[in-house]
């Protein structure tokens, strides 16, 4: 595993490997000899003895792309396309991507220099201050009334904004236990949960109850069909 990593870390990904091959072979990026590059690319993949599927899949995807371009270039062209225009070149998309990638690779080297320059300036950490928050000033009761009138009017609008609510099962478990303690260890199922709240709250409550049963913190009992379901705290 580690052996594989050492080898792979040389390249930051398939684009990086391709750039390396292009530079090594001193290839004109606008006229990539696809056959040679593909061969070298795959040869490199073969040197990777152990495969980390996450990383390797990206390298393999590029290998497939290269093979596809290679095969498309081998296909005989229909006679009306004697001249190979740019759009017809199956390599074009790859070239565009490589150029874009190379741009940022160079930029990142420049930015690294910026960072290095900046490292010569030493700064110090901010001192801790007790944050003081002043009581608001210049408040007027009319402002309060106006604000209320505004918000009240907008809230009786036909439309309502739906906000996402989040309920944790753990909180609900705590709530149920709390209720049980309050009612001396026994409550009715329908007295407690599911009565109010949004769908997600109900779901969280129900899951919490199931979890408590599983943990054997509570017992669920029912005397007969359709009668009251009781939840009893197990001590």
């Amino acid at each position: 595993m580690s052996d594989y990593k050492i080898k792979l870390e040389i390249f930051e990904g398939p684009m990086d490997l391709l750039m390396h091959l292009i530079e090594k072979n001193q290839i004109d990026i606008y006229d990539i000899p696809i056959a040679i590059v593909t061969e070298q690319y795959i040869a490199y993949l073969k040197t990777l003895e152990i495969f980390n599927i996450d990383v390797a899949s990206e390298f393999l995807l590029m290998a497939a792309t290269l093979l596809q371009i290679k095969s498309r270039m081998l296909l005989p062209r229909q006679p009306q396309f004697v001249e190979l225009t740019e759009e017809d070149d199956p390599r074009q998309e790859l070239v565009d991507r490589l150029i874009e990638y190379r741009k940022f690779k160079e930029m990142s080297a420049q930015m690294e220099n910026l960072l290095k320059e900046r490292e010569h300036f030493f700064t110090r950490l901010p001192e801790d201050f007790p944050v003081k928050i002043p009581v608001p000033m210049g408040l007027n009761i009319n402002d309060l009334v106006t604000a209320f009138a505004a918000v009240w009017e907008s809230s009786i609008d036909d439309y309502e904004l739906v906000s996402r609510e989040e309920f944790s099962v753990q909180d609900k478990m705590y709530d149920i236990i709390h209720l049980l303690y309050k009612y001396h260890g026994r409550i009715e199922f329908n007295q407690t949960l599911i009565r109010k709240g949004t769908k997600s709250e109900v779901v969280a409550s129900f899951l919490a109850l199931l979890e408590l049963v599983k943990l054997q913190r509570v017992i669920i009992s029912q005397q007969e069909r359709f009668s009251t379901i009781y939840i009893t705290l197990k001590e």
Partner: protein
Amino acid sequence: MFYLKYKKHIEALLFVSGDPITIHKIAQILEIPEEHIKLLIEQLIEDMAKDDRGLTIIKVAAGYQLCTKPELSETLEKLGQVQDTKLSTAAMETLSIIAFKQPITKIEIENIRGVKIDRVLATLNERQMIKEIGRKEAIGRPILYGTTENFLKCFGLNGLQDLPPLAELLP
């Protein structure tokens, strides 16, 4: 003095270190004798005594430390203060709902305002306009909010009974 050129190094070292630093350590880093360090620090303290300088060097148990002059503390405390004394529209709206509808839960306010209000509530709480006044007897026992004494003071009210009656406000 031969070592005068090291004055700036000492100033910078004290600055970066933050914590007190011993003469011994400075001498080690600059590779010059300790007694010279001591003289240089004395010179730096003298330089900093000038009225246009805001920093000084103090001697503490563990060595020397760069710090601000004590007479500036009042100004420096303002750095930690929130300068804004106004309330935002969102805060004002939320506050008005709490004032008129208290005791009220967060969800109930959110239902009226149609947006999440966690941050606004935190602000109002920090600024001592609202407080928790209990728990609602419902699932989750949500917190009930109400206004504070400070709220009354800021709005010049003697009590909540001085708030204009809601009925008149609503259409």
